[in-house]
């Protein structure tokens, strides 16, 4: 937010004449207005209608019926469960592992650049390609995982069974995003000024103690940003889940908001209901982001034992 108030540079003679402003701003604002903000508001309006099908669609105003239906929908409940589980995984495994790896790479000289390059690369590959790759690993006959088990003299496992499917969707997502948070946290660590470590060294604070009392509090804002990104990211899950388990397979138990919305809108063609799901996702995202910001603002919380 620090670049909100732009008083110091903006006012030179060149920019006194405001007419060119229109030419600079209008194209971008026009495109965004029509294809970003208008659809967003339209989607909100749609959620109060019953709409069936595209093109020759029929619209009936039904008030908050769609939202009432949301509350009773078992698949929505399942999506909430799956998303919560994914948020938990994000915090523990993605951000947690990323933090450990970042601290390690920050502590070494040789090879730091190599590790940074390797850890980050999964993020540039599409979720589709990674999902497909993991489908090859999960295959019962000849998949990588079962071939490893076979080598170890163990029986093959049905990886995408009812109980395991959700974890098998989570695994590639975790693998992909560890690198993402790793780079963000590492950048945060790099920006910690060296002399703070020097003072710590003089005071005899070293090793894990230094990480806990000095490094972590200094990158706390970065971790908070990661947390918000992780939560909003979990709410947006679509590609990976769709590639590994389309239509929430098996039996709709692996549905996330994105996959369920896609199914209700494009296959069941209940557009109004799909809009209501989208509104729910935006509201959840806003609420949880604010909760994170509020909850973690107080330093006391961070220093308490239960963290």
């Amino acid at each position, binding site marked *: 937010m620090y670049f909100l108030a732009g008083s110091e540079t903006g006012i030179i003679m060149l920019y006194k004449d405001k007419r060119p402003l229109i030419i600079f701003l209008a194209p971008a604002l026009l495109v965004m207005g029509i294809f970003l903000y208008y659809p967003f508001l339209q989607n909100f309006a749609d959620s109060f209608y019953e709409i069936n099908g595209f093109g020759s669609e029929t619209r009936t105003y039904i008030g908050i019926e769609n939202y009432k239906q949301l509350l009773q929908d078992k698949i929505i409940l399942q999506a909430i469960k799956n998303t919560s589980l994914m948020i938990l995984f994000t915090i523990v495994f993605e951000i947690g592992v990323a933090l450990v790896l970042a601290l390690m790479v920050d502590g070494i000289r040789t090879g730091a650049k190599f590790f940074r390059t390797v850890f980050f690369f999964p993020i540039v590959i599409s979720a589709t390609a990674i999902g*497909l790759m993991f489908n090859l690993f999960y295959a019962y006959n000849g998949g990588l995982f079962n071939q490893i088990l076979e080598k170890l003299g163990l029986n093959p496992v049905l990886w995408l069974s009812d109980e395991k499917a959700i974890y098998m969707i989570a695994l590639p997502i975790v693998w992909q995003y560890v690198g993402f948070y790793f780079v963000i946290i590492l950048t945060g660590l790099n920006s910690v000024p060296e002399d703070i470590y020097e003072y710590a060294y003089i005071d005899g604070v070293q090793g894990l103690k230094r990480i806990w009392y000095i490094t972590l509090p200094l990158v706390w804002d970065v971790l908070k940003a990661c947390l918000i990104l992780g939560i909003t990211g979990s709410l947006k899950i679509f590609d990976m889940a769709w590639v590994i388990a389309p239509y929430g397979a098996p039996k709709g138990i692996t549905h996330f908001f994105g996959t369920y919305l896609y199914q209700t809108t494009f296959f069941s063609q209940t557009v109004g209901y799909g809009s209501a799901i989208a509104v729910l996702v935006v509201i959840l995202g806003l609420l949880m982001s604010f909760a994170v910001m509020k909850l973690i603002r107080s330093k006391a919380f961070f220093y308490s034992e239960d963290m």
Partner: protein
Amino acid sequence: MDSTAAAFEKQISKTKVKNVLSRVLIYSVLILWAFSSIYMLFWVVNNSFREKTEILNDSFSFVTYPTDENYRTAFGRLSREENMSILRAYLNSVIISGSTVICVTVLGGLAAYAMARYSFKLKNVLYLILAGSLLFPAYSLIVPIFRMIQGIGLVNNPIGVIIPQTAVNLAFSIIILMGFIKNLPTEIEEAAYMEGCGVFSVFFRIILPVTKPAFATVGIFTFLWSYNDLFLQMSILRKRVSYPVSALLNEISSQFGTDFGLMCSATTIVVLPILIIYLFLQKNIMKGLTAGAIKG
């Protein structure tokens, strides 16, 4: 004085990780994680040169008699029998993502310049609206967007994807570029004004050349996002001929999921160009990512 400071610093950096044992531990963990990542890719590429039956028996050993059969199938059979081809999908992807990158950098660059340099009423409100839109998930927009695209008659047309992708990526690019332009000193612009330059020649002759790296970052990021996007592309492009790479890959996996050789070669074909781009441009990619994450 200088030498003692240097010596002290040296000691600090040495104490970064002090004893040999923890050093060994750290490197083992790092190498293990790196190895598992690399091995997964290696497994796919290695097996893409193997016959289907061979993969089922032994997929670990380094391939000794490589076959190009899987690649022939991937590039050939799909196109004749299924009305889809990987080359066609590449072309679609390049058209869509390339155009999106151009639109986003041009429109975003102009808007960012105005936001950074002009002062006007509602500027702060506009900034908040821009930042707020980063929270919209793409699928909260898809139904109205689809309706509009259908209304204009652009379903199955690349333009029908390019416009919404541009809209979705603009906020991010404006915020990033604005940050870069704001940090430039204004002296040169003032001097140019004294020499009689107008705003437009200042933008094209002074601002653009200096902010090239920032534009590169935004461009690469937009490209990756667009190339990898499945949701928007799958929703609007519903004919196989118009599929870009990610949608085609999804289709291949649902149709030929049991043909391991073909799957491995298809995955390799999709991932390889991205990996090469990444290795060449990783500096820009990381810079953009962290700037976006912390400011967004």
